[in-house]
């Protein structure tokens, strides 16, 4: 497997204790989860973040130790007084303390993740608010445009009515003119006939006068 090339990550280094005689996957996973929980939350989130493309957030920094003061002075005095009994106390308390510490770490990690998620939620909500605001102003603008268009449409409607009226009048006038034209045609034909009759009469009169 290319021992020289690869990075060494033995189970011991990872502080994961495996009972090979009696493998318990859940227990291994719990150890892994505890190990990850003991890391600064930022590191974990950063890793996760780097694998994500959609959005980027920052997780609140890990909790720092409480500031010094009267409580810390009392604590130091108590610790001094308890020093002779320290081995006994450690023997009695350590396993519980260890459990407690791990639980607190887990809770702390969860809290910080929850805080991070809440913050992200707030950011998303404010972004949605902004988008909604932009949409509202766009809708207002569109509303104005629609009103303008309605006015234009009204004007166009009136104009169309006038045009229709004009067309109607034109048709009536054209019809009248056609009738007039037909009438004139008939009159001109009558006049032609009269003229022909007068010509013939003229010729007859000429014949009689000169014969």
């Amino acid at each position, binding site marked *: *497997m290319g021992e020289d090339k690869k990075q060494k990550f033995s189970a011991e280094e990872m502080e994961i204790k495996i009972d090979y005689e009696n493998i318990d996957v*859940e227990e291994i996973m719990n150890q892994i989860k505890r190990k990850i929980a003991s890391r600064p939350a930022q590191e974990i989130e950063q890793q996760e973040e780097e694998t994500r493309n959609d959005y980027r957030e920052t997780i609140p920094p890990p909790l720092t130790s409480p500031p010094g003061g009267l409580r810390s002075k009392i604590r130091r005095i108590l610790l001094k007084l308890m020093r002779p009994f320290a081995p006994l106390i450690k023997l009695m308390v350590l396993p519980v303390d260890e459990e407690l510490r791990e639980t607190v770490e887990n809770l702390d990690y969860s809290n910080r993740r929850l805080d991070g998620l809440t913050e992200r939620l707030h950011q998303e909500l404010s972004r949605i608010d902004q988008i909604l605001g932009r949409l509202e102003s766009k809708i207002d603008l569109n509303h104005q445009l629609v009103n303008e268009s309605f006015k234009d449409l009204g004007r166009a409607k009136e104009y169309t009515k006038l045009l229709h009226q004009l067309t109607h009048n034109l048709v009536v006038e054209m019809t009248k003119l056609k009738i007039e034209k037909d009438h004139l045609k008939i009159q001109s034909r009558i006049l032609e006939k009269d003229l022909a009759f007068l010509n013939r009469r003229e010729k007859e009169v000429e014949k009689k006068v000169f014969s």
Partner: protein
Amino acid sequence: MKIAFVVQRYGMEINGGAELHCRWIAEHMKKYYEVEVLTTKAYDYITWENYYLDDIEEINGVLVRRFPVARPRNPMRFGRIQQFVFHHEHKIDDELKWLEEEGPLAPALIKYIDQHRADYDYFIFFSYRYYHSYWGIQTVPEKSILVPTAEHDPVVYLRIFKELFSLPRAFIYNSEEEKNMIQRVANNSHILGKVVGVGIEIPSSWPTQQVLEQRGIASDYLVYIGRIDENKGCDKLFQYFLKFKERTNYPVKLVLVGSTKLTIPHHPDLIYLGFVSEEEKFAILQGALLLIMPSFYESLSMVTLEAWALEKPVLANAHCEVLQGQCQRSQGGLYYENYAEFEETLKLLLEDDKLREILSQNGRRYFESNYTWEVIEQKYNYIISKLEEEKENK
């Protein structure tokens, strides 16, 4: 005794999902019962367009009756209706409309079941979410056995299915998680139900070395086998694997087997082989250090069972309850929820040969005690004999 297996698609060309599951079960149960398959003429699971021509044919000794799809699915319309049904207040009618669009719309199949109910002793319906199961079970509830193949997605919470889940005589589940989910949704724990799953067909031999040489795979590798799709968590897998390589520089590659719907990033450590034959698949799986299963939705991961059959450990997506449950029950794999866990579990598996070996052995034992064909056949026979007993007692 005559049993009908009712499934949305059926054929040698269909090589995955509930359809393959159904074919394998039908082919194995034919030695105990007279078996027939009632299905549609569809091949494409997106449009359900009629593809097969024959009304009746025989596939590996099983009689298959095919019924036409009356109207193919319009993916756009289906998407719109699904969006509405999943995300808005709606009525039962909307859900029924969704079901009709979900298809495959084969009323002739339901009519046949109705007219020939007396010819069969039991109808085993595969995949609850399709038209054939919903209306088929409504038609013959007294003879129905349902293999839901349900995943933990929004479909299972539709109201029409709550009613459906109280109708069959028995359920055959793929996993404990699926059983719990359906019983939680429908409150139907009084109905006979057993976790069975499916056996695995393993070829007698496969030329591992030859295949690896042909494919040019020389170094250690992890393998993913299946549809390369966002729904299967592959995009996340690529991100996690490339990040893992960047952070650890571990000399390991990721081999991808299966048809793809995603653009695979160009990286020397991502080897995409596309669709391969069954023998090649087993050869590639045999040569791998472990199988990665990044899917979010699984009712039963057949490839995970194949990995355990070949004594390979599994690294699964913990967001999929079924995969996580299988890893815990089998003690045959680890699982991850986020990148940090992915890195830790993968490092542990790659470095700790002994752990890998023990997980592999556990996986194999789990496979042998739950997923060999003898076990699966016995479980099916048990369900049917139980139903027969109930019938006699009435």
